[in-house]
């Protein structure tokens, strides 16, 4: 089966992401990468937990965090996870334009999340003098949450690049694995966020 | 081939034992000549593990030699195809279980000793041992400070301790991480930058005698260009002598014998006193104590931890400390001294003794 072969909804394979050897490799390789990322974030969490109370006299977690903002951000990211599921659903049904639409919504929601995060950081820096360099807590906080934010940014540009590059070509077995893998990445970002809002924000409020 | 092999092995064994004996090292420095309860405990564990390990090595070596001698491909064997054996459950169980047993034998004293050595409850709190001596060790870039909090005295470079009793240590570093190690008296503990570590040692009087009353201490964590030179010495004294030393330290003042020394004192006050204290009762805060306390300097074994303590060394040190300990924190901090001033300072410094 040639990768750029033209398909119809009927001939399109059931699991297009794994229909070619290249696709299978990508799929597996990416999952393995996520296994490594799990350790990466676990290490960052461990560092954060070790340092979270070392604020060198600066603001504490209770003073800093505002749950409504975090809740809003969470809703955005969570919803974007669902929209990317929709995108993949349409990919499997060979509904290219619907897939693009849902990925587009995903990107918008992700951008919204990123906007809130930037606003939040800005707020901390100016209202609380809570910066990357103000204390070990500050360093650990911005590193953990910032690493996640960077993942969001990378995920956004990745999905966007794929959309632009393939906008006119339609689906084939060469780009289907790419879309699929990008959506996996997006979900993983959401998984990490679930722990961030729980461990950093909620536990930070509990103390 | 077969004939010379056993002989060769006996030779090897002999030379190894010879090496072992010769290799015990110096009584003031070697872990193989333990001089106190802690080192003894560690030495027994080392011996136990060595015996187990030698056993393992011997078993492996015997099989090994048999195999490589017996099964080598000889002439005429070029076309022999050996039987392709898959494995053997029985054998594999044997060499799984026996090592497990050996390791259990080793693990039990390991765990026990770990807890014994970490027990510092006699140091403070409600179980405080009234006779216990506590020493606060502060490691600094290339010098050591020893504070006796209960006696309210401070000394440097030479640690003075009583023999045959538990001495508790609370250690930390003031700049980068170092590690506090007196090999013949017990294993090391790191001096961290963010917390105090605690442990204890006992200095055996008989062994101390054998070592000439002095044990060598080492910094065992890479700490910069002069890490290799961050030595200290331990004077282990009988308890009454130790107490006498403490009393003398409390009231010690530099002895200014002649005009030269007096001139030296003046120079010292101007150039050196900002860092070095000359009284054991230094009440300054830790951060202000940026140099070794010199109260009993003339009694010390070494100058700056490494040079033999004599006038020549002192002059050498004052002239160019950098050439002796690269990266030390005294270089360039005390102005320029004339040769005359150095002579005077040396006189003055030689008068700093309590004995």
């Amino acid at each position, binding site marked *: 089966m040639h990768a750029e072969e033209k398909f119809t909804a009927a001939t399109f394979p059931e699991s297009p992401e794994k229909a070619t050897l290249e696709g299978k490799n990508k799929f597996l390789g990416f999952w393995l990468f996520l296994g*490594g990322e799990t350790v990466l974030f676990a290490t960052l969490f461990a560092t954060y937990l070790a340092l979270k109370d070392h604020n060198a006299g600066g603001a504490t977690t209770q003073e800093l965090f505002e749950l409504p903002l975090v809740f809003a951000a969470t809703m955005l990211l969570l919803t974007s996870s669902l929209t990317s599921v929709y995108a993949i659903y349409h990919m499997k049904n060979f509904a290219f334009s619907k897939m693009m639409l849902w990925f587009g919504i995903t990107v918008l929601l992700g951008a919204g999340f990123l906007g809130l995060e930037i606003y939040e950081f800005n707020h901390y820096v100016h209202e609380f003098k809570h910066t990357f360099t103000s204390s070990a807590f500050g360093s650990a906080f911005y590193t953990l949450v910032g690493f996640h934010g960077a993942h969001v940014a990378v995920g956004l540009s990745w999905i966007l690049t794929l959309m632009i590059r393939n906008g006119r070509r339609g689906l084939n077995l060469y780009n289907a694995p790419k879309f699929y893998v990008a959506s996996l990445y997006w979900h993983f970002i959401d998984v990490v966020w679930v722990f961030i809002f729980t461990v950093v924000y909620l536990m930070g409020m509990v103390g | 081939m077969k004939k010379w092999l056993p002989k060769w092995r006996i030779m090897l064994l002999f030379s190894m034992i010879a090496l072992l004996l010769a290799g015990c090292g110096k009584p003031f420095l070697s*872990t193989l000549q333990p001089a106190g309860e802690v080192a003894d405990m560690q030495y027994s564990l080392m011996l136990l593990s*060595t015996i187990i390990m030698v056993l393992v090595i011997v078993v492996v070596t015997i099989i090994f030699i048999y195999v490589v001698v017996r099964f080598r491909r000889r002439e005429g064997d070029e076309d022999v195809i050996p039987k392709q054996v898959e494995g053997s459950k029985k054998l594999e169980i044997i060499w799984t279980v026996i090592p497990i047993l050996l390791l259990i034998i080793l693990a039990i004293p390991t765990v026990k000793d770990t807890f014994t050595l970490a027990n510092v409850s006699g140091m403070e709190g409600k179980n405080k041992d009234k006779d216990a001596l506590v020493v606060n060790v502060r490691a600094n870039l290339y010098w050591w400070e020893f504070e006796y909090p209960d006696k309210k005295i401070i000394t440097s470079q030479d640690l003075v301790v009583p023999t045959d009793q538990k001495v508790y240590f609370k250690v930390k570093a003031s700049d980068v991480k170092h590690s506090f190690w007196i090999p013949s008296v017990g294993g090391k503990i790191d001096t961290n930058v963010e917390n105090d570590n605690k442990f204890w040692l006992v200095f055996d009087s008989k062994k101390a005698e054998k070592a000439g009353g002095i044990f060598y201490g080492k910094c065992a964590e890479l700490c910069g260009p002069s890490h290799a030179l961050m030595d200290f010495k331990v004077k282990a004294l009988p308890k009454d002598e130790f107490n006498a030393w403490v009393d003398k330290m409390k009231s010690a003042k530099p002895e200014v014998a002649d005009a030269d020394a007096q001139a030296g004192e003046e120079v010292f006050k101007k150039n050196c006193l900002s860092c070095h204290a000359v009284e054991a009762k230094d009440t300054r805060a830790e951060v202000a104590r940026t140099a070794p306390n010199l109260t009993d300097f003339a009694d010390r074994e070494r100058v700056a931890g490494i040079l033999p303590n004599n006038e020549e060394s002192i002059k050498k040190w004052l002239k160019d400390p950098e050439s002796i300990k690269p990266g030390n924190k005294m270089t360039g901090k005390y102005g320029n001294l004339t040769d005359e001033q150095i002579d005077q300072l040396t006189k003055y410094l030689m008068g700093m003794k309590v004995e």
Partner: protein
Amino acid sequence: MSTLSQRKGFGATVWDYLTTVDHKKIAILYLIAGGFFFLVGGLEALFIRIQLIKPDNDFILGTTYNEVLTMHGTTMIFLAAMPLIFALMNAVVPLQIGARDVAFPFVNALGFWLFFAGGVFLNLSWFFGQAPDAGWTAYTSLSMASQEHGIDFYALGLQISGAGTLIGGINFLVTIINMRAPGMTYMRMPLFTWSTFVTSALILFAFPPLTVGLFLMIFDRLFGSNFFDPALGGNTIIWEHLFWIFGHPEVYILVLPAFGVFSEVFATFSRKRLFGYSSMVFATVLIGFLGFMVWAHHMFTTGLGPIANAIFAVATMAIGVPTGIKIFNWLFTMWGGSIKFTTPMLYGVAFIPSFVIGGVTGIMNAAAPADYQYHDSYFVVAHFHYVIVGGVVFALLAGVHYWWPKMFGRMLSDALGKVTFWLFFFGFHLTFFIQHFLGLMGMPRRVATFLPNQGWETANLISSIGAFFMAAATIVLVFNVIKTSINGEVAKGDAWGDGRTIEWAISSPAPEYNFKQTPLVRGLDALWIEKMEGKTELTPAEPIGDIHMPNSSILPVVIASGLFIAALGFMFRNEHGWGDVVGGIGLAITLLGMFLRSWIDDHGYHIHKEELMDDDSKEVKA
């Protein structure tokens, strides 16, 4: 399109290697780069031993010594041992599983160039006169205090080459999981492939903690954060943990492939199948697994408390059991066999007692209270050189001799190989055995010099003499390589005559598509099975057809050099305004490279059936 047997000029050859995505050529790149760094690291080791040849020596002192020491450890581990292991894995694993290439040829090339960029960056520090000087472990109080840019070179260089290693690991995992030939079940994989698999998994999980640790270090040193500054609430012990969470698995990343090499060598030169294959596999996996639960045995003296020390001590000891299983299985592989003492086999048999000595001193270290004495003394230096040199370096030398014909089509001289072996073997034990006693006699490690009258003179002298034997051995090896590449014996496909695994079924060197027809694997030691049935070739699993090949690309070099430039820029951000600009440009180059890779479709090309037939007839004629 096929580039088979084309004559090329020098420039074309260089271009070919810069752009290659062929695992066999990448293997050669790893071999050359790793070999070069081994010479550099060895030279640094010689400097160490020269300085310590007598007390109060002043050959290299103070900071310079610390730089040489740090660069020796870092170079040997990250830039010599690991790449040489990757060289063997690249050269052999796809052939052993009957694959045409690795899963991601492009990523494979990228991995190499990232490693290389990081390695060059690290060694660039010598030319700036600011090499890292805080030990290969770079404990954070000292590495934060370290002036100038030495530690920045360390952190940035390792970050870049670490990324290369990580993607290399993922690549091998996917290759082994997805690209095995029909019939090559997991339990039929050669042990070297198995150890590559487990090693790659260790890389996948061990490198992220290092990545994080290095990021924190870079942030603290260059971007003003306070992870390791106690004054602002930081904690230096975090680095120790992160480093060793990586560092301990790292030593098994080094030694498992070594075990794999020897499993092949013992079986081949004993003409026997590996004794206890399943338990060998099981032991490999178990060692990898346990490797993640023992890191704090490097920190027994840090003051973690008796509970942590006791748990980690016992967990560490447990690793002796699966390792022992392997040792005895190797012995019984040889038992009853027909042992031929070729150069690789000599390394194999020498490995057993040498490694066991190193291993059991590891168990001695694991007894925490005793380790309070051993730690940071020459006893530990002796321990790890016994396992690393007696295990890993011996394996690399064995592996290079063993697979040299498969990589280059010529045999290395066995006579010269044996000279190398005996010199190296003798020098190795002379250098390191005595260091156990130095440590027990109270000599700390990482000392730039030592004073007389502490009972250490003789032992240090002996140790230094030993190092020169190893140097002589290395020179003979280099000579061997040069000599045989000019007039060495041409290798047959089954170069040693006793090959068991399928890489020996194809010509030496392997054709660029590896297997003309994907083979059908009918059991463990597939080639041996065929040979025992009187056949000379593997059973094919498919008819001859077009072979899909990946395209070459210069982008890996572009991406890697972008990071190199970025690192250089960011390093100077605090004293030069252009630092951030150059850093940004570098990152932009990298991102552009990645973007182009994503944007430009790359479908590869095909070698057609007819060309393959052509090759056939050529081979017959030759």
